[in-house]
């Protein structure tokens, strides 16, 4: 169940715009499997959102190929619907896709489109809603009267209900409060570990990706700059800064301590790691 991206390039055709015809993705090759929790980072306009839309065929590359499970998704007669149910994509600010009269029916939209029987649809929908932290009491509320964070979770449930093998999320935590972010990421971590769902997410928060991801892909101007573990990527602090990114707060704190002569090991990127290292140093 792996996704293999081979040398894809893409440009938008926009008659009116001055950027028309510019390459947004250049020759990207990468592969994903379900065991990893991957984060895609990169400065604004680097092509992250464009890239992830290729993985479930919402956009089609100009060149190159994408294999799902060894089979080209560009092949004639490839079942797009099936692909989209296996590679679930949650857009940035997904709450604007809600449209039904109650939360449960909205979440049922995905599985219903897969042509599943009614009771299976309900089962998957309620399961997905419970997974994202809804209680049964909220199932029949109108999606439009939920709070922003609840809407976000309802929208994620809408994709989860299709029981995808991969879950791709575009800045899922944007606009959430700290508790909301934590809950969301914990839920994704759980989904990954227990549910065996491969996670690919786009994020602008270095701290979040340091804490949760086990693989980082750095995009810049449509090309892959790094593809490695977070610790390794964040060891290139200078390079990241030059393209408008940063290292996590914890890595900065560790560096400051090192500058003050406290010898901490390299590659500390989360607060947890820094804390243990300091305790080890003095303990």
């Amino acid at each position, binding site marked *: 169940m792996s996704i293999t991206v081979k040398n894809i390039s893409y440009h938008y055709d*926009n*008659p*009116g715009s001055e950027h028309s015809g510019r390459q947004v993705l250049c020759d990207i090759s990468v592969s994903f499997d379900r065991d990893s929790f991957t984060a895609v980072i990169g400065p604004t306009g680097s092509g992250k959102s464009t890239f992830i*839309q290729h993985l*479930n065929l*919402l956009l089609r590359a100009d060149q190159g190929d994408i294999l799902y499970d060894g089979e080209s998704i560009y092949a004639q007669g490839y079942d797009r*619907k099936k692909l*989209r*149910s296996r590679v*679930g*994509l*949650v*857009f940035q600010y*997904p709450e*604007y*896709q*809600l*449209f039904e009269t109650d939360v449960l029916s909205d979440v049922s*939209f*995905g599985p219903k*489109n*897969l042509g599943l029987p009614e009771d299976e649809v309900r089962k998957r929908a309620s399961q997905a809603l419970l997974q994202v932290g809804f209680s049964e009491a909220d199932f029949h509320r109108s999606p*439009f009267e939920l709070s922003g964070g609840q809407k976000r979770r309802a929208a994620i449930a*809408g*994709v989860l209900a*299709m029981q995808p093998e991969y879950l791709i999320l575009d800045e899922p935590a944007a606009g959430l409060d700290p508790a909301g972010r934590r809950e969301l990421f914990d839920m994704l971590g759980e989904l990954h570990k227990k549910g065996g769902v491969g996670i690919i997410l786009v994020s602008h928060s270095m701290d979040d990706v340091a804490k949760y991801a086990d693989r980082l892909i750095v995009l810049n101007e449509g090309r892959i700059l790094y593809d490695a573990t977070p610790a390794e990527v964040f060891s290139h602090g200078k390079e990241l800064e030059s393209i408008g990114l940063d290292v996590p707060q914890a890595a900065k704190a560790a560096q400051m301590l090192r500058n003050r002569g406290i010898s901490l090991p390299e590659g500390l990127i989360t607060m947890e790691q820094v804390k243990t290292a300091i305790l080890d140093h003095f303990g």
Partner: protein
Amino acid sequence: MFRDITLGQYYPGNSIIHRLDPRTKLLWTVVYIVTLFLSDNKYSYLACVLALGIMIFISKVPIGHMIKGLKAVMIILIISILFNLFLTEGDKLFSFWIFTVTRQGVRRAVFMALRLICLILGTSLMTFTTTPNQLTDGIERGLGFLKVIKVPVHEIAMMMSIALRFIPLLTEELDKIIKAQTARGADIETGNFIKKAKAMIPMLIPLFVSAFRRAGELASAMEARCYHGGKGRTRMYPLKYGASDYCFMAAMFAYLAGIIILKVFLQ
């Protein structure tokens, strides 16, 4: 997907025509339409075509780009040509099956086609060389005299400019919504008409919800900045006629007079 929808496409440029006051261009459009309908012989048609040709030439809008705009009305154009060609009584040129083509028919078909093409190209030259904002400004100022008879000119112009501003936003939004629903397995590309129409519901409801939300937000934003209608409102860039506007208008009235003379004397 839906980003290609453009309305009154502005063709960026810096020609004399682009820099004219929008009111001058509005007046030109009206005058040009009037002359087209005054024309009834080959000399005046020639003058109309020539005037349009000169305008297009100095506006520097590529002619191919302008002709693209004709595609939308191609069917109307063809139908009107055929009707005029076959249904005009007069001296028979030739006939086949049940159709008869007359000399007058050919003449009327040619003139009709010319008139339609000039009408469309002449009016679209206005939108090609004027940004929507300038256009609404021009309408507001140019039609200001209607306020005397209680036509809410300012409000109409404001609605127009907001609507124009919203079109790209909404198409972008629709594009996003369609993608998001497609990712949930929605399918608007296959199936019969009823199935497709039904499949549009999950796209349209969020679109309307977001349109209303945006409208509400915009209204609050306008009120927060003390917008209270057009009364007493001054402008950052007041419209002013320049020397080129006066020259252009002189040429325009000379052209109008010429067409009238041709009409009167070549009866």
